[in-house]
């Protein structure tokens, strides 16, 4: 009885050892002898990934001595993996990251390589003013080029509006209108409106939209003190709370908490209005053509329609300071960011080059005038040291108020204390 077991065991072990040996020998590839090996990490967004892969193939063909290893890492894991790799002086050569991370974390921590001044001058000549601020350091050096640049708008479900007796051609302009329209929609059995309750980052971004409109700020200009509990800040949170809990435009307890699909509720008809970004249009077009057909993108509702605002955010490709192939990395980045037309048509990513709106591909961008308008009235998000902790405090405050019923004043005061603690360290 023992013999067969022993035989089987040793056989399995042998197979494993051989497998191990094979695997160990075949792993990893190194640069050397004129060959350049770049690693490129991005988050996961399927249309973007597809185009990236295509562009990589083209680049490798045009530059036969270059191989590019492209890895996609889910947003939730991105920071963990990046930090751990960077802590050993390894990590990718080229990264694609959002401006808050770049301005708030990676530039201050000296992890990125700045462009040389000639390249920077060229870039500044090429892009619309201020759109490069998302990857610019406090002392004016540029660290990346944009792959996507988003302004904030609003989307409504035309069919639902019609069913509720509303005219889709007259979308809500102020949040009060959103409330009124929302209540009519709900009375007609349609979805209303809701914010998203996903990651701490998304909570903060949505509050930032409202803060831009009320004139509030999360932290002071010098990044040293929390100002979220000041009246303009409280006004923003109370607006959120009123829309959801008093006007009852949506149920925060049953809204999707699946971070991978921010538009699930809109697509399912649980909401008929939602905050929208250009990349969202592309994603809905791909995932849910029925919703896309019914969708109309309109300007973002305002607290004061005579003083419109919105938030900007962008993703930029940047170079790791520890990279051993920085010039090649920049060459690759220049190639990827030069393909503006394809980014527009294939992925609906707007790259803010000076004449993007009049380009042939732009004509095919759905809802072009709305996006053009949105770009006039936006600004980048605030950043400060330890921003992840700040975002966490904001998330707690919003959840305590909107989901747990505590007053905006008290929750924001608590958030303020927490934020001050973080900024003090």
């Amino acid at each position, binding site marked *: 009885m023992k013999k067969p077991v022993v035989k089987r065991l040793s056989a399995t072990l042998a197979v494993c050892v051989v497998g191990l040996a094979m695997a160990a020998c075949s792993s990893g590839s190194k640069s050397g002898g004129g060959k350049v090996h770049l690693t490129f990490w991005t988050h996961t967004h399927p249309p973007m990934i597809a185009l990236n892969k295509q562009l990589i193939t083209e680049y490798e063909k045009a530059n036969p001595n270059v191989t590019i290893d492209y890895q996609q890492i889910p947003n939730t894991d991105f920071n963990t993996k990046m930090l751990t790799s960077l*802590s050993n002086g390894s990590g990718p050569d080229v990264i694609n990251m959002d401006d808050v991370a770049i301005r708030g974390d990676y530039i201050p921590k000296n*992890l990125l390589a700045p462009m040389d001044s000639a390249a920077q001058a060229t870039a500044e000549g090429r892009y619309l003013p201020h759109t490069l601020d998302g990857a610019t350091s406090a002392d004016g050096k540029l660290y990346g080029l944009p792959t996507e640049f988003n302004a904030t708008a609003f989307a409504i479900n035309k069919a639902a509006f019609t069913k509720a007796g509303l005219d889709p051609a007259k979308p809500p302009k102020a949040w009060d209108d959103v409330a009124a329209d929302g209540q009519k929609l709900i009375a007609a059995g349609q979805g209303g409106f809701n914010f998203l309750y996903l990651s701490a980052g998304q909570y903060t971004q949505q509050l930032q939209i409202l803060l831009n409109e009320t004139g509030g700020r999360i932290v002071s200009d010098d990044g040293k003190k929390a100002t979220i509990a000041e009246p303009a800040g409280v006004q923003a949170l109370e607006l959120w709370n009123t829309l959801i809990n008093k006007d009852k435009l949506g149920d925060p307890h*049953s809204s999707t*908490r699946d971070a991978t699909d921010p538009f699930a509720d809109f697509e399912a008809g649980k909401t008929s209005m939602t905050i929208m970004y250009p990349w969202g249009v592309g994603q809905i077009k791909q995932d849910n053509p029925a919703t896309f057909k019914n969708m109309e993108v309109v300007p973002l509702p305002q607290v004061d329609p005579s003083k419109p605002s919105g938030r900007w955010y962008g993703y930029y490709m940047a170079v790791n300071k520890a990279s051993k192939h920085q010039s090649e990395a920049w060459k690759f980045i220049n190639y990827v960011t030069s393909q503006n037309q394809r980014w527009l048509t294939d992925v609906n990513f707007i790259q803010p080059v000076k004449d993007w709106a009049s380009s042939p591909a732009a004509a095919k961008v759905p809802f072009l005038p709305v996006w053009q308008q949105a770009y006039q009235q936006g600004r980048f998000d605030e950043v400060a040291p330890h921003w*992840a902790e700040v975002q966490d405090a904001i998330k707690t405050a919003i959840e305590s108020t909107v989901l*747990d019923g505590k007053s905006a004043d008290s929750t924001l005061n608590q958030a303020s204390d927490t934020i001050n603690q973080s900024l003090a360290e």
Partner: protein
Amino acid sequence: MSTLAIRATTHRKLIGAAFAVPALALFGLFAIYPMVRVFYISLFDYDLTSSPRWVGFNNYEFLWHSEQFHQSLEATGFYLLFTYVPAVLLALLLAIGLDTKLPGSGFIRLLYFAPVAMSWVAISVIWRLLFQPDGLLNRVLGTHTTWLTSTKSAEWALVIASVWKETGLFLILFLAGLSKIPRDLREAASLDGAGPLRSFRYVTLPLLKPMTAVVCVMAVIRGCQSFSPQVVLTGGSFNTEVVNLYVYKTAFENARMGRASAVAVLLFFALLMVTMLQLRLFRSDDR
């Protein structure tokens, strides 16, 4: 004792010690060394991408005053108590019932084990559906609780899902422990007039002590180091940020490795004490 016998003993001790070498070698390099580094880093401010900066006991001082840290300890205590006490008791009862060769028993054991086999990432999708305000759980219970989105119920939701998922693990351990208790002993006891309860209390339970010790130690450690269910079900909101989730966020999202290490060190000492206590309590006195 003759020299031969003494040498035989020493020789035996050497071989015995040698048996432990493979494990100890792996431990030394891959467990002890990193552990020592963690203790060391707890005295620094380290954000992973710049050089560590000496701060002495600052991290510990911060934790002493930190509301968030205290909250996390409370959340952990709640979770540990209400998940693992029921899970262990349930596992024991199930093990006794399932320790049989009756037809179909293997299948039934599989039913209780299945929850353990699936990863939290995957099963959280289902549990989130079940916990929806209009989901199946509310329908079955006739309630309208907002399970995952309120401070009153989020902790309980986690307990429910975790008891479901953890019981099977302890079930296996108890089954393995029971299987080593000779049937003849148990049958002999019942012949002496002992009813099933007495036979359990005076025969089975004492012989199960070693395995019970393992189960209890594992339960406390798993309870204190849990964070997957919290991440996937509530993200730590609504008072469910258990201490290990606090550690993870502090280390990787807030890039404060020094502070996270300090928490780890504190947890270490707490768990060490509890484990030593447990092992002493469960020590078999019939060696």
